[in-house]
């Protein structure tokens, strides 16, 4: 396995900038429930960092601690260089947030929601107008700025939330399951904004997701399960760490081919449902060598380990199974900082 040690991202040397997010020994318990059981990580400035795991893994709890909505039971965290417990106000000034659930006022217009945000974040007044224009333009809502938010579709609301999260030019943008409940078109659009954002703004994006395809987009991901980080690295390094590519081959005589491949090329083979599978570190480059052996190849396909395989390797379960076990779209155990006393 070639995992980078947890908490020390590779390639930090040279940037010379302090980490955007730094977490050590983070623990959060709610009564008897240990939601977060000791998380360490460090996110570089400018990185797109993903938190991948099923519902109930501790992702949202961790995000809520990082954005000062919850206090950790133990451990420490710094965001944009500020301690999330001691310098809460400073942390808040430097972060933008988009939550799973909407936090817009549906009875105000898009622009009124943004103006509220600008004021409560204390943005310099001269910058408010131009900046509102810019973020609305970015998410394509310029022509709906005077519409009440309750007339918006789910995708439009999420875009407005992103616009608002960016309004005060945060250093770190937290996106907590930003595409949950969105149709494929809105999801694609949202990723377009994230890409554009990273190109145009000096910003670190910290994302939670339980979609594998979204995790693939991240510079690095942490695989979270049961309140712990199982693995943390780039998506490709994680995939490489769980095993070789799988080359499925159909030949005129599979038994002979298997013996020949083992003997001449020195690689492992296996049978899956009677099909010969050759395990090779770099499957696509391996395929020509099969032909060089003079085998009568009828068909060949190469598959790489997926992040789901990675998830399986590090947690012992498929993501989809965990998702089902967690029982649908769960919320974190508390409703907010003022707590749920029902």
């Amino acid at each position, binding site marked *: 396995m070639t995992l980078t040690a947890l908490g020390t991202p590779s390639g930090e040397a040279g940037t010379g900038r302090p980490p955007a997010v730094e977490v050590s020994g983070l623990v959060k318990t709610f009564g008897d429930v240990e939601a977060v059981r000791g998380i360490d990580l460090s996110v570089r400035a400018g990185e797109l960092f993903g938190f991948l795991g099923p519902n109930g893994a501790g992702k949202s709890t961790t995000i809520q601690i990082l954005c000062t909505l919850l206090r950790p039971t133990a451990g420490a965290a710094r965001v944009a260089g500020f301690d999330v417990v001691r310098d809460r106000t*400073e942390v808040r*000034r430097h972060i933008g947030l988009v939550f799973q659930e909407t936090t817009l006022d549906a009875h105000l217009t898009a622009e*009124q929601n943004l*103006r509220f945000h600008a004021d*409560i974040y204390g943005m310099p007044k001269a910058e408010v107008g131009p900046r509102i224009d810019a973020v609305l*333009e970015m998410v394509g809502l310029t022509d709906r700025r005077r519409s009440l938010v309750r007339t918006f579709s789910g995708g439009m609301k999420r875009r407005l939330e992103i616009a608002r999260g960016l309004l005060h030019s945060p250093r770190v943008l937290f996106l907590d399951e930003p595409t949950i409940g969105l149709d494929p078109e809105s999801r694609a659009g949202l990723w377009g904004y994230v890409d554009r954002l990273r190109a*145009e*703004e000096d910003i670190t994006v910290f994302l939670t997701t339980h979609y594998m395809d979204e995790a693939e987009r991240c510079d690095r991901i942490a695989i979270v399960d049961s309140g712990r980080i199982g693995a943390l690295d780039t998506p490709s390094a994680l995939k490489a760490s769980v095993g070789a590519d799988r080359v499925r081959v159909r030949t005129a005589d599979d038994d002979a081919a298997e013996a020949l491949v083992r003997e001449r090329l020195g690689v492992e083979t296996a049978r899956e449902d009677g099909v010969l599978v050759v395990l090779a570190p770099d499957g696509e480059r391996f395929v020509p060598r099969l032909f060089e052996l003079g085998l009568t190849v009828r068909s060949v396909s190469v598959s790489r380990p997926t992040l789901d395989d990675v998830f399986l390797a590090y947690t012992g379960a498929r993501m989809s199974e965990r998702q089902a076990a967690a029982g649908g779209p769960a919320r974190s155990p508390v409703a907010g900082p*003022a707590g749920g006393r029902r």
Partner: protein
Amino acid sequence: MTATTAPVRLGGRGLRHELRAVRVVWHRDLLRFRTDRGRILSSFAQPLLFLFVLGQGLGATLPVGTFGDAGYSTFLFPGVLATSVMFTAVFSAISIVWDRELGFLREMLVAPVGRTSIVLGKALGGATVATLQSVVLLALAGLVGVPYDPVMMLATVGLLFVVAFAITALGLVIAVRVDQIQTVMPRVQLLLAPLMFLSGAFFPVSGQLPGWLHALALANPITYGVDAVRRVVLSRVDPSIGDSVALHWGSWPVPVWLDVVLVAGVGGVLLAVAAWMFSRPE
């Protein structure tokens, strides 16, 4: 137009920033009030019933001269103003529970402002909305024999604002840690009805009341608010009415300024309690 590579452009800090946050929380309540016409209209039903049905109905049974030159409807008018303000104010305050349920509260909670500023903005917003509504009711003054005297009207609006502020603060104490509207509604109902009936809005407190009822009324801060509004209004209707309708501690008529100090003081204390409750970590 694009969002340019963002330089660090952080917002302000300190008292000015906190005041701006108070103002924007207050302003949001006003914006929502303006768009919520249904609420405005429906909130007049109860005061109108009190004023014209209770006022005329009960008034017809009372001997003339019970309240000097003023009829019962006139006597009732300040009480109805105060109770209508109570209801509007408390429902404004518990809108913070809606904010929590619908998510918007989080937008405020993660903002770089103190919780006290949010609570203060909410209290001022609720008080302003309630006072604005009472102005519409005040326009009915002529129907119950109250002259349209600008000074008296302004003083009344000012007093109603103080009452509304105290009641909003009370509503915030009840609501600020609650996360479901079903939880807060019964509590509010349980509290509002006794506060209203024990406030002297419908009958004079100092006079013929039984001792226990008199004591309860005097313990109710709203009583002092109703007393202040009534004295200001009735003194304009019948200048000779003097202290006869005034609240008394023993034989001492409580001065209007003390009424105001008491209500404002209770409001201030309640607001501090709400801010403290709101600021405590989970």
